[in-house]
């Protein structure tokens, strides 16, 4: 054990899903077993950190000002599907069941976890909807207490006329979000969306 190795391990351990053992394995793998992989990893980290940012329209990850979905002119502009996190968006994309646009909140309201309305990507959504084009907002947030409270908070702030608000049907695992649902379940959840009020 050296101080630098210890520091590396400590940094790895802070990553999600990585415990003490895995951190040790990854550190030794990079330094001892396959040191040749290290430059590649460092370059990838630096490049990603430099170029990946949030789409200015929807909050999805992007390398340009707009993400791939917002830049795609074939996508329907009238529908905006609101999700908590980027992986939720990716899950819906994989299902192939949706051709509209997205809005990523980057979380949901939870005072217990220290998440307040101003911590969410909400203001951009409201501006986006007030500006016109949107005819339907699809709420694809998880159906736990925090997800429901966020849906309510958002709906209270949407224009009362001109925009239809729907909630995806929940055959989804109770309390869970869209992330854990398979493509078939997601497709039927989207098809079974109901008017939300």
């Amino acid at each position, binding site marked *: 054990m050296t101080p630098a190795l210890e520091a590396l391990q400590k940094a790895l351990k802070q990553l999600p899903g990585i415990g003490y053992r895995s951190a040790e394995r990854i550190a030794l793998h990079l330094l001892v077993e396959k040191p040749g992989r290290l430059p590649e990893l460092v370059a990838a980290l630096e490049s990603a950190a430099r170029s990946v940012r949030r789409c200015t329209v929807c909050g999805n990850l992007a390398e340009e000002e707009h993400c791939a979905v917002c830049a795609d002119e074939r996508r329907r502009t009238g529908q905006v599907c609101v999700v908590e996190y980027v992986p939720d968006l990716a899950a819906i994309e994989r299902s192939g069941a949706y051709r509209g646009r997205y809005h990523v909140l980057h979380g949901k*309201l*939870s*005072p*217990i976890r220290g998440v*307040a*309305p101003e911590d969410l990507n909400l203001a951009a959504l409201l501006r986006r909807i007030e500006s016109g084009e949107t005819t339907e907002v699809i709420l694809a947030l998880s159906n*736990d*207490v*925090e997800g*429901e*409270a*966020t849906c*309510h*908070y958002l709906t*209270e*702030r949407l224009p009362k006329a001109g925009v239809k608000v729907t909630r995806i049907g929940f055959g989804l695992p*109770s309390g869970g979000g869209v992330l854990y649902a398979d493509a078939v379940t997601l497709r039927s959840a989207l098809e079974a969306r109901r008017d939300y009020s």
Partner: protein
Amino acid sequence: MRFSRVTLQGFRNLPLAEVALVGKRTFLCGANAQGKTNFLEALGYVTALRSFRGAESRALLGLGVTQAGLGYTVEHETFGESRLTITLTPQDRVVEWEHGKVTRLADFIGKFPTVAFSSQDNQFLRGAPSLRRRWLDLTLAAMDGAYLTALQRYTRAVAERNMLLKQGGRDAGALEAFEHELAAHAVTLVARRTVGIAELGELFRAAHARLVPEGEQAGLVYAPDTAVTAPAEFAALLVNCRTRDTLLKTTERGPHRDDLELVLNGRPAKQFASEGQQRCLVIALRLAQAAYFRAKGGVTPVLLSDDVLGELDPGRREKFWASLEGEPQVIATGTSLPADAAGWQVLTVEAGGVQ
């Protein structure tokens, strides 16, 4: 249902107990503090993954033990012969049932009903409302998944609102969002408690009548903190309470403050019932719980009697036995054998050993 085999490892003071239960009546005999109640507690745990003594799960681990195992073989009206194991660690509890791990409490709670008669039940009348609410919640949730969901979500929404109050209650928008969610579940809880208490009250009255001389009539009265029927009405009440709740840093009104009153001949039993009458009331309440499980779930619960039947005089004890419905399995403890020991499987409990 009937327990036919129980294996406990590292549970409280029981290092290892492997017991085959024969017939419908088992008596655990032994001096105090040898482990009789611990054994019953382990059996009762299977119903809702809760101790009937109100102990936290981590308190159930033996001294210096990092993992406890509870294994049950059960003959069940619906599932036939079933094998169950519960593994307790300081952080976690894992239930395995036939096909694999049980991931949601809602899929498991109440499937294996037991009802415990404990001497602690005497606190039921005079103790804090939380004791009676806990009993009510467990009884209703065990038979009604929607009730459990509403209760869990209500509790979570209250916790989120309380956090906003602790932060100064300034974010009216966030308060409103969680109050909206909270109010919906509050109304569900009040509605289901109203129905549930009426049904339980009827069973309670009948069970009590079979135990006592004619002329005494028992009843259950629901005392909701807020008897609202519409979510909007409750949400409006919460808005009115915001200033006061912010000062107190907690949500003061709502079903988490409900109570349940036992009455005897129309009067509050905690003030007007004698000690003997109170004992009959709490036993009748447990019998009502058993009858409720049987009626709603179609499964006759196992009765666990912790030193309680010994407290009854012979006349009442006889009435107790005569009042049991559906020939339940009874597992009882005591320091000396019951007078009618014939027909009982007798096990001796000594220094954490059961044989």
